[in-house]
């Protein structure tokens, strides 16, 4: 029983990180209809920036801010320069451009920082609490809470602010929304920026577990099943999907172990898609004939 609870707790922590990345994907996808394949890499750049700031001796808060802003700026820049034309015409082309950006960012990181992993040690990663028989890592708690807060904030923003309403209008029917004066480019830029910030947060949190390296960008691959399970456009789905993937992974690691654990997110994805082809909270989109 203890093992189960421990796995659930750890899984929720990891799941929080996946949820943050998935949320980043959702925010971008909802606003632009594009799967932002460079999201994880953008977050990675942000995380590296934060680490550089930390190295200078500045406090954690400053590092987080610097990292988040860098990633946000990077995302915004990508949208403004490279993706602008493609976003208006062909979404597939835009997705592929983000792929290109992802590869370029990886190369840039490799050139500047090398491919070795950097160890990142802050108090966040080391503190644990004992609750009964279970060990709760402070890191996991923070990840979980951050994910929930981020999701709540995003949902709230979409629901209760004018900008959020504009965003929802864009998602529902872009041509009509634009005719009504809603600026799609600005919204897209913001979406990419927010996505970048979220990804940076996720990458930083993931790094607290010990190290930061090109492998951290694998978060993107882990978050994709979470994203699809939740339903591509659903903010709640991102949270639930992330948590499910995190928990499933941890359960597999505890009870099965070995390399099979890597396949767990995809197996879960398959199971969900068979039952609900649009994901848990997704809606089947009706296509135009």
């Amino acid at each position, binding site marked *: 029983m203890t093992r189960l609870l421990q796995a659930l707790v750890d899984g929720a922590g990891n799941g929080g990180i996946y949820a943050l990345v998935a949320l980043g994907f959702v925010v971008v996808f909802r606003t632009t209809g594009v*799967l932002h394949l460079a999201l994880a890499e953008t977050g990675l750049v942000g995380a590296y920036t934060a680490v550089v700031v930390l190295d200078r001796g500045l406090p954690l808060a400053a590092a987080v801010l610097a990292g988040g802003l860098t990633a946000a700026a990077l995302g915004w820049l990508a949208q403004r320069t*490279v993706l602008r*034309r*493609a976003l208006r*015409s*062909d979404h*597939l*082309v835009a997705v*592929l*451009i983000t*792929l*290109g*950006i*992802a*590869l*370029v960012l*990886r*190369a*840039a990181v*490799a*050139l500047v920082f*090398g*491919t070795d992993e950097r160890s990142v040690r802050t108090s966040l990663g080391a503190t644990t609490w004992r609750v009964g028989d279970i060990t709760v890592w402070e890191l996991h708690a923070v990840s979980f809470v951050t994910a929930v807060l981020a999701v709540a904030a995003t949902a709230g923003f979409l629901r209760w602010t004018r900008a959020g309403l504009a965003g929802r209008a864009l998602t529902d029917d872009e041509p009509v929304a634009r005719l009504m004066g809603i600026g799609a480019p600005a919204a897209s830029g913001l979406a990419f920026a927010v996505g970048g910030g979220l990804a940076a947060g996720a990458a930083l949190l993931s790094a607290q577990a010990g190290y930061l390296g*090109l492998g951290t960008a694998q978060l993107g*691959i882990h978050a*994709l*099943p979470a994203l*699809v399970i939740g339903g*591509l456009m659903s903010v709640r789905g991102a949270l639930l999907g992330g948590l499910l993937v995190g928990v499933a992974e941890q359960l597999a690691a505890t009870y099965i172990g070995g*390399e*099979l654990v*890597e*396949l767990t997110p*995809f197996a879960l*994805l*398959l199971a969900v*898609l068979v039952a609900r*082809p649009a994901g848990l909270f997704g809606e089947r989109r009706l*296509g135009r*004939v």
Partner: protein
Amino acid sequence: MSSPVWSTISSSTARRLAVWAAAAAATLAMLALANDYWLLVANRALVTVVAAAGLAVLAGTAGQLSVAQGAFVAVGGYGAAVAAAELSLPIVPATLAAMAAALVLSLAVGLPALRLDSLYLAVATLALHVALLFLVRQLELTGASTGMRLPLTSIGAWRLDDIADYTVLLLAVSVAVVGAVARLLRARTGRALAATRDRDLAAAALGIDVTRVRLLAFALSAVLGALAGSIDAFASRTITPDTYPLTLSIQLLTVVIVGGLGSLGGTVVAALVLSLVPEALRGLTSALGDVAPRLSEQLLAVQTGIYGLFLALVLVTQPAGLAGGWRWLRARWPGPPATPETSPGLASDRVRADHGPHTTQEGP
């Protein structure tokens, strides 16, 4: 007044023959003059051509975004290796066995996956690659993490001992494959594929079995990928799980996109050009040597980065890829009237060169 003989050969056919003749002459010259290193490069380029041609059918014409081509290349390589090791098959039956395995796998995966939206298909095919790599690492049959060695082999009496032998083989195979695929795309099947990409509901209304056509494209791409992988494995003589990373699928997709979705010719050119990128990079790093030591350390990452740069650049400036650029050029230099391209898709892009003083007399 044109002579009766020439009048039966249209200008476009004559041009095509000229291009093929030039290509043949160039390749013969290369074979005679090149050293082993460049032949190795050529081999790699030709393997890419075959694998990319398969993907071109699927991604370019049928419009299905598959990230699995690398997986099928792996099936080809490992299938051939296992066939050679366990059953002592020479290259031809081993390749056929590997291609059959790829066919079965593509049908098994394709039937459920191709019904999904293209995004879901991409994720599903990614999962396929991950699962395949995992499987290969676990089984003793496939050499686990250390990989497998392939024996020297032969086709009938022709012993494939040197790199040059494989260059000849690959040249023959790639020409055959590209020719066959081109013919397929011009025929009814090709048009059906294009129709399902453009307007699948309309295609279905016209009586085209969309699922079957997509499955066909998927299977074809898998089989060609396996063909490429198998020959490559025999040529390289050693394969490991690292020979087929996830980035392989992405590189192949890059080739198809840079070439221009829907254009087989563009894909072939892109495959050849992008295969030279690692070589150019290597030359660059040895030239820059001391100035940028990091560059040579991170060669692989930078290589992938350059692919990405190519991809982004091409897509930003000319989303229709090299093929689109070619059409753009042809539009600006009106030469002899161009016979409309018979490749399907992108009808709006067809260029009619103006009928000026260069009009050729066709017919008696």
